[in-house]
């Protein structure tokens, strides 16, 4: 029958979507190796990974939200506000910026970081899922509010007097890789596994693909969509913690503009803004591509005035290459 011959190709194409970025990634890495002989050194590759860990976690959160067919722009602000509140709880007031005279112990403060992420997600979920407000604009408003709260609560000051635990994720290493990289790796493995092998993961795809059909199949659409906002908030909070450790301080601008990069990584990695399409593997290739290009442009000594234009052009080029190799229109 006619459809029978069509099937294998369709499936192949669907899978290709997730691998679409690999050729582009390979080309960039190849160019990197040619342009600069240190590019492929272990040192440099570790550096790329270390620089990408925070982004990777935020992209993971955003990907989960996108899979369910929603949006969360406010994750970039969570990257700033969550660790900031943890820091303000952990820094003694005596230093002129903390909130308490006898501050919280580090572990509790770090727990607070995660809790803040969860609360932001809870609130977003409430507005988007329960009140059915437009996700784009709600989370844009939240982005602005949280950024404002960060500037307000720190009076714009950079926080750096936190206990060492705040920096541990990015500075401590294990088998030569920063803990942050291990953490991101594990998070992708676990989430990737759940998405593929667990009912909750399958439910995300179903919700994003057709929420009505998912509801009719007994999937608790609202509850899951709401939970995903919370999980994304927590992941962004962890990303923020990693970022803090990476930079060694927490400026009131932390996370600023990051959301563009987050979307860029997810979308060139094959995650559809319409929901229900894409894999974490794809998203991860998106993160790595951006990290490698960033690194490469510095290594290739592109003049700084033109570096941004080249960066954009490389993304566009990768996108077109992905289009050609996967042979499919993109959504």
């Amino acid at each position, binding site marked *: 029958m006619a459809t029978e011959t069509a099937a294998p190709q369709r499936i192949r194409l*669907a899978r290709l979507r997730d691998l679409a970025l690999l050729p582009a990634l390979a080309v960039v890495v190849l160019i990197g190796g040619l342009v600069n002989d240190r590019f492929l050194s272990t040192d440099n590759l570790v550096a790329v990974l270390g620089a990408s860990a925070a982004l990777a976690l935020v992209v993971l959160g955003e990907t989960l939200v996108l899979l369910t067919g929603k949006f969360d722009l406010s994750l970039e602000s969570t990257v700033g506000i969550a660790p900031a509140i943890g820091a303000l709880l952990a820094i003694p007031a005596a230093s002129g910026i903390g909130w308490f005279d006898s501050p919280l112990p580090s572990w509790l403060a770090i727990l607070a970081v995660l809790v803040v992420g969860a609360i932001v997600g809870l609130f977003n979920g409430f507005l988007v899922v329960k009140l059915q407000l437009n996700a784009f604009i709600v989370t844009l408003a939240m982005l602005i509010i949280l950024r404002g709260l960060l500037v307000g609560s720190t009076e714009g000051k950079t926080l750096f007097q936190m206990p060492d635990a705040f920096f541990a994720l990015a500075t401590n290493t294990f088998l030569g890789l920063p803990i942050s990289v291990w953490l991101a790796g594990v998070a992708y493995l676990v989430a990737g596994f759940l998405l593929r092998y667990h009912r*909750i993961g399958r439910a995300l*795809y179903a919700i994003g693909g057709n929420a009505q059909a998912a509801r009719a199949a007994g999937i608790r659409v609202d509850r899951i969509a709401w939970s995903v906002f919370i999980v994304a908030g927590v992941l962004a909070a962890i990303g923020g913690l990693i970022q803090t450790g990476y930079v060694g301080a927490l400026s009131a601008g932390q996370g600023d503009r990051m959301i563009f990069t987050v979307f860029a990584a997810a979308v060139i990695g094959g995650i559809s803004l319409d929901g229900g399409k894409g894999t974490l593997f794809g998203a991860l290739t998106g993160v790595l591509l951006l990290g490698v290009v960033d690194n490469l442009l510095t290594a290739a000594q592109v003049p700084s005035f033109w570096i941004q234009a080249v960066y954009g052009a490389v993304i566009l080029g990768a996108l077109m290459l992905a289009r050609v190799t996967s042979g499919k229109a993109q959504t």
Partner: protein
Amino acid sequence: MSAPAAPVVEALGITRRFGPTTALHDVGITVRPGESHALVGRNGAGKSTLVSVLTGLSKPDSGTVSFNGEPAPPVADREAWRQRVACVYQHSTVIPELTVAENLFLNRQPSRRGVIRWSALRREAAELLAAWGVDVSVDALAGELDVEQRQLVEIARALSYGARFIILDEPTAQLDSHAIARLFERMHQLQSAGVTFLFISHHLQEVYEVCQAVTVLRDARHIVTAPVGDLSRSQLVDAMTGESGGLAVADGAEREPLPDNASVALSVRGLSGAGFADVSFRLRRGEVLGLAGSNASGKHQVAETVYGLRKPDAGAVEVGGVPLKPGDVLAALHAGIGCVPRSRHDQGLVLGMSIGDNATMSVLDRLGPAGFAAPKAVRGKGTTAIAEYGVVAKDADQPVSDLSGGNQQKVVMARALANDPDVLIMINPTAGVDVKSKQALLAVADRVRAEGKAVLIVSDELDDLRPCDRVLVMRAGILAAEHPAGWADGELVASIEGVELDGD
């Protein structure tokens, strides 16, 4: 007698491929002026593809189309195509956010010096709908119409282009008998005024009712074209399926009556909600119950409320004697209800996901320990479903968007039965499904019944209702009549339409 006029449309040697799929292979069709010509074939045979070629929406890879003996206009010239052929496509072509009036006159709005005259537009739209007896406000948004209204609007629009040749791709799949009758009456009128039709339907009796000639497609190929009188119903089915052997649908009247001690599987008491009030009935194990009525009767709403898709305003549902939490699909599933929802595209399937994923969607929590739903288990269930329901597909990993309508419906059926329900609710189970697939789907209902479970079939298609032990008829939101198996077709139709027959 003069020489026969040139055919209204003649397509020769049409081949159309989608990637590696060949949807049409060297297909030809000739439609004579003034006739109503049926185009039939199983799901996926290529009918809709041929329609899109005949309306200029897609360009064949090879072959020619001519109208009245002249070659078809270039594909880009939509205006020229529209003068030659109008079409009601199988898939809705309304713009949901625009009003009915505007949808009727899209891209040809009455205007003066480029300025659209809205009042004229609304007036002309109202006139058009009135002429058609379509009772819809021209100011309503098209997206808020129900299926029947939307379809009628599309039909009215197609006819209003003034073309003398009109294609209707499964216009009756979603209509109730009332609307179908009106459509046929209109077709007769137009036909006597010289309009030619190409008519697609899976209801073969309709072919005999309105058409003079029929063309059969099978597996992308042209099989036969003949006057309808020359082909018996079973010959037609044989041509479509490529095998001989008639249709056999279990008939409720031929079964032993239910034993009196059969326990109650589903009990609905005083159920009220949007569109229906105070509905009560009981469904016993081993019983197939029909729930019939026109589209506006509220029958869908009752079924959806029982399944938890809607919250009732009042009343209660019990499954096996245990009260069911209202408005909660998951509770209904756990209580042992399975459901084939009304629209497979809206509620039945996630088109981008695989057959396995769709078939297991309602039982994701039962595939493995701790909620694990390993692809292997999913694929396994999908493969079983393919075998059990005769889905034509490559394997369980194939996305359901690849399947033909009838095969998609079988996947929905698999999903409804995945939790091995004690009560199976099937709403419009065979809409848009070809004759052979219809038979397979109804056989499933009969098998489930034979296993000692209960089935509720919600439909107004007589074929769907035939396996029922009794049929409840709803009118205007309330239960109005009950017919035990053995009803006469005319009797049930009259009951559904609320027309009293003499001497019942």
